[in-house]
């Protein structure tokens, strides 16, 4: 690392103030520990946790994921699929925000303000009851998924969507989360589009391109490259936000943890384990993205 005039000097030695902060932190956690251990008389049972990650299946004769791991895998599935859908919807929304047509711009703006100014949980319930449920009923997704679950190619579907009997619930989780995230993706895409110099658009127009071709061949390819880092960050946010779909009974990691807690009463162990799983997943993702970004340069 260079130590130019502009960079902040990083201290290698701890100052007395740092020691004071660490001591205060230590006291705080010590107090919390004392409360849990001493006052609540909490009995730690860490040993029961591993079996809820993986268990040995006697019938199949191998180790299989148990509820916490199933939850984590579902969380990954939901995040990836919702992320892809949010990318598509968000790109459309970003384009709508810079459209020539005033009505389209206003509709996009309204959608965005709606999502920005209403708590996520409320948005999720609204999407769920007003949209997802209706869509699933309208397209007879329940019956269709049950058909697949009984069919021969069920395993391919299950790879992507997990237990097909729970497909409708998973899909509503994905749709709801994607609709929610699309607003943020849309704003990132809009900023990316607007960061492309005016001359680029003028050059496209000067050869007679339509607005759509100008976007498709000139603006978006350049904008998308610019927005990869903020989109990567947004994806990590999405993984964390995906926990709210547990409220509409999607069997993600959070939902499974609630289940585990109610059946075992191992409140602290279960939630700490879940926190570590979420944290580890997001931390891995951020490492991965940072590596990609460095390779890009």
């Amino acid at each position, binding site marked *: 690392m260079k130590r130019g005039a502009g960079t902040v000097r990083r201290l290698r030695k701890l100052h007395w103030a740092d020691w004071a902060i660490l001591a205060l932190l230590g006291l705080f956690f010590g107090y919390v520990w004392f409360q849990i251990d001493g006052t609540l008389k909490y009995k730690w049972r860490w040993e029961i946790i591993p079996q809820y990650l993986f268990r040995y299946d006697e019938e199949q004769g191998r180790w299989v994921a148990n509820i916490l791991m199933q939850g984590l895998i579902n969380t990954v599935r939901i995040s990836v699929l919702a992320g892809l859908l949010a990318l598509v919807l968000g790109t459309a929304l970003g384009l709508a925000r810079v459209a020539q047509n005033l009505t389209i711009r206003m509709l996009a703006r309204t959608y965005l303000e709606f999502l920005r100014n209403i708590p996520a949980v409320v948005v999720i319930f609204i999407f769920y009851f007003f949209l997802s449920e209706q869509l699933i009923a309208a397209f007879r997704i329940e019956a269709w998924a049950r058909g697949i679950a009984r069919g021969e190619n069920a395993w391919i579907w299950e790879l992507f969507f997990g237990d097909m009997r729970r497909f409708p619930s998973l899909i509503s989780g994905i749709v709801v989360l994607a609709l929610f995230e699309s607003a943020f993706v849309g704003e990132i895409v809009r900023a990316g589009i607007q960061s492309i*110099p005016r*001359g*680029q658009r*003028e*050059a*496209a*127009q*000067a*050869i*007679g*391109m*339509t607005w759509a*071709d100008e976007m498709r*061949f*000139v603006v978006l*390819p*350049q904008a998308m*490259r610019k927005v990869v880092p903020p989109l990567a960050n947004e994806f990590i946010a999405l993984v964390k936000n995906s926990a709210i779909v547990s409220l509409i009974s999607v069997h993600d990691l959070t939902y499974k943890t609630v289940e585990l807690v109610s059946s075992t009463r191992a409140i602290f162990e279960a939630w700490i384990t879940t926190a570590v799983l979420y944290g580890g997943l997001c931390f891995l993702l951020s490492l991965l993205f940072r590596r990609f970004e460095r390779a890009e340069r």
Partner: protein
Amino acid sequence: MTARPIIEIRGLGKFYDGFEALKNINLDVHSGERIVICGPSGSGKSTLIRCINRLEEHTSGELVVDGIELGEDTKDIRAVRQEVGMVFQQFNLFPHLTVLENLTIGPVRVRKIAKAEAEARARKYLERVHIPEQADKYPAQLSGGQQQRVAIARSLCMEPRIMLFDEPTSALDPEMINEVLDVMVELAGTGMTMIVVTHEMGFARKVADRMVFMERGEIVEVAPPDVFFTAPKSERCRAFLDQILEH
């Protein structure tokens, strides 16, 4: 000349919210004519030529290009733009595309010609601007002079009937100006209708059929170069010429 002018500008005016950038501009340009526009900075030269391919909308008057009156109709606008090539001061090449792709995107996506044909055409025009060997590079790998020549070739690939140049050499290092001007002189030799905003008076003397001097949004003087450079009628034009020819 009796044929209808390829560009007819009648009483053209342009307001930028409150600021009058063009005032009652009248100019006819005939097919094959080469017009050089000069004038002090801010006099409306760019605004005028950008109105011709409707990168700017005029606010009053009439503008007919290749028989099409420019108005709100987007189809008409695109039809005009296909016949009018434009070269910008800042090149504005597409940085995410190779030189060849920069040249073929218009013909393929706008003119809808086959890719192979577009590539053949692109190579022909790269040859014309003397850089056939740069086809597979990206714009950022080229010098300014080379980039501007690619930009010229990109416009030519649309096989337009009119070429507009907005100070095409102003952003270039001095040693690269001539390579671009040479290409433009050669283009003038092919009979292309050209409107060039430039302060390169050597170039103007060589190719211009008519010189146009603008100031404060108005056309002050229109004259053939021999008259323009030796005996300009207006005082303001003379002062401007003295200033730029001094160096």
